[in-house]
């Protein structure tokens, strides 16, 4: 402690006629037990305990209380005198004012965030018999979305065909002509895409509005009915209206069947129950699965094929029901997706994923493109903050070393307070989206041109209500080189990012997570068995470390972690990684303890 000090205590006594003095150095503030200290001093100085004990205790007590008083008075007086001398009064006053306004509910300018009524409306309905109707409605909407999407795809395909033909005809012409034509093609294509994108957006907005309206109406009717049943009066009227609200839907709906769960045949999968902790054990369930990461987002592996699938049947996937019911609960499932440093949906996994999201309307959250725009806004802010931090570091070298930290803290504070404004700025930007030519895609690509990027280890979160098995996607920023590097270690930013994700999920009471075990979604030629084992071990250990740490003080928390292996890993590779998991988590015991083996393996 900065303010503590040491004082010298002395005590005079007589031993065998000789005058002696006992000395001891004591810390102020003193936090011990005076009797104990006295006993110890007597032992050290070999004073027979029956002599002087009471005297020593009282002398020691008086000494300590006097020294403590002096110490307190000195520090208290100093504070006042120095402040008046130094003229720091205004600063002090402002600090105290901000302390109260930032931390005390009575003095804050912050208001309790008003809750959007929609989630609770949804929550009530989804746990009522209205659930199936609700899902039917969603399904119908997704069918009509699907029509538009396939129309869009057809239009684009047709244009491609047309362009190809035109190009073929141009082959004899000069390069400039070809170039000119190609430029025109690009322009035409973009225009067509934008047109459709706009249409899709429009349609989604309409759907979303209708959906929310309908839900509110239904809820109102159900709610009012329950409140008025006792009163008699308007009860009947409400009931008839309710019928109309439901009937409105059911009239153009055919009854739906719940689809039988059929696991894809080629899926390799193994489950484990593990117990962690020395005495108090926490149990978690782990799964090792070899599957396409996108299969968690859509029931079909190929978004394009999915449309045909949805259109062809009136079946409802039970997983989808579960996902819908758990949306506002604490039973959320999060999926970690690797992404590169740019926030867009132009290529690769990002594109496939975004296409999944666009398949149907998200009735609860902004569309993927809108969410990414918000992310982009924060990313810009983060980049600026980082640049100032770097600047501070370089500039602040010669001066006080503590100052950069302080400024960083303040600047991040100002960022925090600014953020609501920024997000509203973003939403107004979204409003302007309805202008032709400013489709989300083009906006994000526009911004990436400015080179706004996140750093490896950062991550952003998107929320979705229309994916098949997951609600929350954590996009972990990484870079391909580092990922492929066999010597990636626990201190690498990507691994820190992974831990950060888990921590953020835990703090938000999300305890189900799907992790790409090799930190990549597909097998590449460089990835030998040894490489895979090494990477798997790294991730297993990292997750185990996190689980141990997070359950140290909360052992009743159960996690469900799915480790995902890319398709294309050999059976042998899967086997070895499964053994590694057993070894890392020492599961051989728990597996057979439950009587029947909980290690279920589905390998075909």
């Amino acid at each position: 402690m900065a303010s503590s000090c040491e004082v010298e205590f002395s005590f005079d006594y007589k031993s065998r006629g000789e005058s002696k003095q006992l000395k001891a150095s004591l810390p102020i503030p003193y936090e011990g037990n005076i009797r104990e200290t006295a006993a110890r001093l007597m032992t050290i100085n070999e004073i027979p305990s029956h002599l002087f004990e009471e005297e020593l205790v009282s002398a020691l007590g008086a000494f300590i209380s006097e020294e403590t008083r002096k110490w307190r008075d000195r520090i208290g007086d100093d504070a006042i005198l120095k402040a008046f001398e130094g003229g720091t009064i205004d600063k002090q006053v402002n600090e105290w004012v901000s302390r109260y306004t930032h931390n005390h509910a009575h003095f804050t300018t912050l208001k309790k965030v008003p809750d959007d009524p929609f989630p609770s409306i949804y929550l009530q309905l989804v746990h009522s018999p209205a659930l199936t109707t609700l899902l039917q409605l969603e399904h119908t909407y997704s069918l009509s979305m699907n029509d538009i999407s396939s129309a869009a795809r057809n239009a684009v395909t047709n244009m491609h065909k047309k362009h190809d033909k035109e190009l073929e005809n141009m082959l004899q012409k000069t390069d400039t002509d070809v170039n000119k034509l190609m430029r025109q093609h690009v322009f035409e294509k973009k225009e067509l895409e934008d047109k459709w994108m706009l249409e899709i957006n429009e349609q989604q907005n309409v759907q979303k509005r209708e959906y929310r309206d309908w839900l509110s109406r239904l809820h109102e009717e159900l709610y009012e009915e329950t409140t008025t049943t006792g009163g008699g009066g308007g009860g009947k009227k409400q009931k008839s209206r309710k019928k109309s609200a439901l009937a409105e839907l059911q009239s153009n709906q055919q009854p739906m069947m719940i689809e039988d769960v059929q696991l894809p045949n080629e899926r390799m999968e193994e489950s484990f129950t593990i117990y962690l902790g020395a005495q108090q054990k926490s149990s978690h369930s782990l799964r090792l699965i070899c599957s396409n990461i996108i299969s968690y987002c859509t029931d079909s592996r190929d978004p394009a094929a999915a449309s045909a699938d949805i259109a062809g049947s009136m079946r409802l996937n039970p997983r989808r029901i579960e996902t819908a019911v758990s949306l506002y609960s604490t039973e959320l499932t999060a999926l970690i997706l690797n992404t590169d440093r740019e926030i867009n949906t132009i290529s690769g996994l990002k594109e496939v994923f975004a296409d999944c999201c666009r398949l149907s309307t998200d009735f609860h959250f902004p569309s993927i493109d809108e969410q990414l725009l918000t992310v982009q806004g924060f990313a810009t802010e983060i980049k600026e903050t980082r640049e100032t931090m770097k600047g501070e570091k370089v500039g602040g070298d010669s001066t006080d070393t503590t100052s950069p930290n302080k400024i960083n803290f303040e600047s991040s504070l100002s960022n925090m307070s600014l953020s609501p404004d920024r997000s509203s700025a973003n939403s107004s930007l979204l409003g302007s989206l309805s202008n032709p030519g400013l489709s989300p895609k083009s906006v994000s690509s526009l911004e990436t041109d400015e080179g706004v990027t996140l750093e490896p280890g950062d991550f952003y979160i998107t929320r979705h209500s229309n994916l098949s098995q997951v609600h929350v996607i954590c996009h972990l920023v990484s870079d391909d080189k580092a990922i492929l590097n066999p010597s990636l270690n626990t201190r690498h930013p990507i691994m820190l990012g992974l831990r950060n994700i888990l921590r953020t999920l835990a703090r938000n009471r999300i305890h189900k997570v799907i992790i790409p075990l090799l930190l990549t979604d597909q097998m590449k030629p460089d990835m030998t068995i040894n490489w895979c084992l090494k990477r798997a071990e790294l991730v297993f250990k990292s997750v185990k470390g996190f689980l141990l740490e997070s359950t140290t003080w909360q052992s009743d928390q159960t996690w469900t972690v799915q480790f995902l292996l890319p398709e294309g890993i050999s059976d042998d590779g899967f086997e070895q990684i499964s053994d590694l998991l057993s070894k890392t988590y020492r599961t051989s015991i728990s597996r057979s303890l439950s009587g029947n083996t909980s290690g279920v393996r589905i390998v075909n």
Partner: protein
Amino acid sequence: MGSNFMLGDGSFGAFTFYAREHQAEECNSHGLPLTPNTILMTGRFEGMRNIQHNNLCAYLDLLKCNGERMVCVSEYYKDSLETRMKQKYSFTHLGAAQLAAELTDALSYLHERNMAASFLCTESVLFNKNGNVKLFNYGFCHITDYGNFVDFALESPRYISPELLLSQSKDLHIAMATKSNIWSLGIILLEVFMECHLYPDLFLKNGLATLFTCLLRFVRNSQRGGATPLDGLLETHGLAEKPMDTNLKSFLELCLVPLPSKRSSAHSLLSHVYLKVAKNKKDSDNLPKLVSIRNPFDGERVTEKIEVPSPYSSSSMSTGEANVILKEDHLSSCSLQEVYFLWSLAGGDLNNELSKASLVTNRPPVLSLPCVVAQDIKEFGVEEDSIHLYDDTVVTLPMEQLRKRLQSKGIEDYYPIMPDPEVVKNDRRSVVNDSEQLLQLSKLPLQIKEKDIDYQFHRLILYRRLLEAYPYTKELIITEAIVDVCPLNRGPIWAALLDVHGDIVSRYDEIDKESATPTDRQIAVDIPRCHQYHLLLASTTGQFKFNRLLKAWVRDHPHLVYWQGLDSLCAPFLSLNFNDEALAYASFCSFIDKYLTNFFLKDNSPVMQEYLAIFLQLIAYHDPVVFNRLDTIGFFPDLYAIPWFLTMFTHVFPLDKVYHLWDTLLLGNPSFPLFVGVSILVQLRNELLSYDFNECIMMFSDLPDINIHQCVTEAGRLYHITPPSLYLRTQGKPQEPLDNFHGPPEACKVPLSIESLRLECSPQLSAHDLISLCKLESRAIGYERVSKTPPNSKDPNDPLLWRDLGTKGRNGEVIVIDIRTQEEFESGHMMSSYNLPHYEGTFLPNGDLTGSPETACLREREWDFIVILAGKGDQAATFARQLVRLNFHHVCTLNGGAGVLRSLGLLSSVLE
């Protein structure tokens, strides 16, 4: 133990707040993640339970909730100085002086204990029905380490002292807090005089800044020789002319001095003339209302004489207008801690109460997630919510449910009549037998009993009364502990069972716990790894106490050494007696002394080896199948059981299971733990029979979930059916001669050397045990003097034997097999014994029994109690080994063989 104060007319108040969160990846010097502030506060909070003053509300609980949120529960009263001021209540001169006196007294009490009050303001000054001050929410300086663990300020802005306002560093708060309290006291009393608040516009824009600037202006003026802050304040509020009592003025001037060094201390203010008037009134009216008169374990230190008002005599309390203890409301005479415990059992739910007052919102996770998280900076996109800010709104916890559950309890339930200890000692009849309802409840599983409010109500009142009269009631406590232990009083009950008495506080004080010792390093490494899921043990306060206890033990036992595991062994005692280190220490020492004699010698192999050898014999005796399996794969006790016994299972079980295990273990004799070990193996039987060596090692290195109730019951059953001589040890504490041993010395067992113990797989039975098993006392030589002891009499010194296990005491019949030659057998043998001569074809070459009528009879009765009788040599052991190999249960050999029986006159010839 918690607050000893009576509930009186108090109620419980709860409020919630958030701890400051650590940054991700922050580590301590050991490289371990930082302990969350919530846990550190949980540890420091325990110290508040020791605060017992008539003018301070007792702290009852601090609960860690989701994330960084905590809920604090304290004694609470609706009537506060703030509400009185709002209602324009005007204090009489005497009333104001009494308020001042009681507040000063409370502050002086806190300051003496090196604590300062937090949130000293009109909202915190509460009154009970008698109008006595009950200061509320004063503990946060201590709990939060002077604001280190939270973001909010610990003062109400109106009452903040100038030095705090001007302090450059938050670290200095600790030095300023006590004198700051005096300033706050001055402002409160000034407001009482003014009958309004200073700066009523505090909540307007710039209100705070105006307040602070004004205050500092007065301070500066007075520093420059201008008017005192008191005069300045009065003048600004236009009250300079209001007549003020000179004594009050002098008192306020002593409080409102800008420089702390010139400001009075609470202690010196106590003798101020202004408080004199109130003092006289106080003494008669403000008696502490304690539930228990004394702490049974405070030894000679019980010097403080406190007069306790009896609920029956109204003489001491009739002065108050409202009698605190209502005529028929006995619940109000229970201690706050007891009532809170019962409130929780009656289904009280803190979070639910707080949600109702919308102090807690449960935002769905999907809506609370951040948008972007940058590693080195922060989270972005989280909506800021004022719900995380400090809100001092207090929710009064409803008592209706509790009162409804207890409405049938009459005066005899609150003040039960105690049985006579001398009578109880002989029949061990618990008071639960007096009521059919309690008797039924007492037979429920422990986990259910511990949650049953009816049952716990009776148990806690009973145990409170028994503990007050300890050690006189020691036998009564043992008798009740045979039924079960009340979780609220487990610490002191265990101490009573362990026979802790005397001046344990002084003894503990005298031990040096600070000087460095060679084991310090090891202790420092072990503590942060010991039962860290337990919030108190994980807190800094807990680890500090842990370190002191272990160092004290090392220092106090120079002939013993610190073996790793001592930390685990200490954990139950520390966690149960967190606020009473001396009691924890005394129980800890007494436990080791009784159950682990010599286990902590530098060379503990003799005692350990003997223990393990007997353990192995008991496995063979009770479960030969498991024994044979483990023998085949070479999985011996020294590979797994050493930490079991060295730590008495505290290393392998979580504390809540250890509590339940030890509730029983403490009743048994020092060999009882052997049966707990056997019982664990029995529970893991299926796994043991199918696992190979490596799997067994794996399983025992991290013991799977054990059903502790089943484990304890089985251990008790095995203990019951095992004759004591089978587990006779020589290396532990010398066993006291049994009170009911009346036989001749030759009937006693001659102890075996460790080597012989390890060679023989079956234990040896003493002749005495054989005699009592076969009820041959009347025939044996040396037993003539004995008046016939009633059959199946239980040893009063072995309380565990009185536990009702719901099964027959000893199962099976005794079969004595005489393996001497036929001639020897015929020349003299024990009645109804079988002769199966060892070398005459009893066993086939493959080890199986041959088909003689005797072996057929033996095979039919493989679950009975088989005693093997031999002449001399190790024939008996070999024979026994062969029977065990054939999975015969309960095989033992007779210590001393036929010779002993002959000398006791129990061999008779066939010819006779």
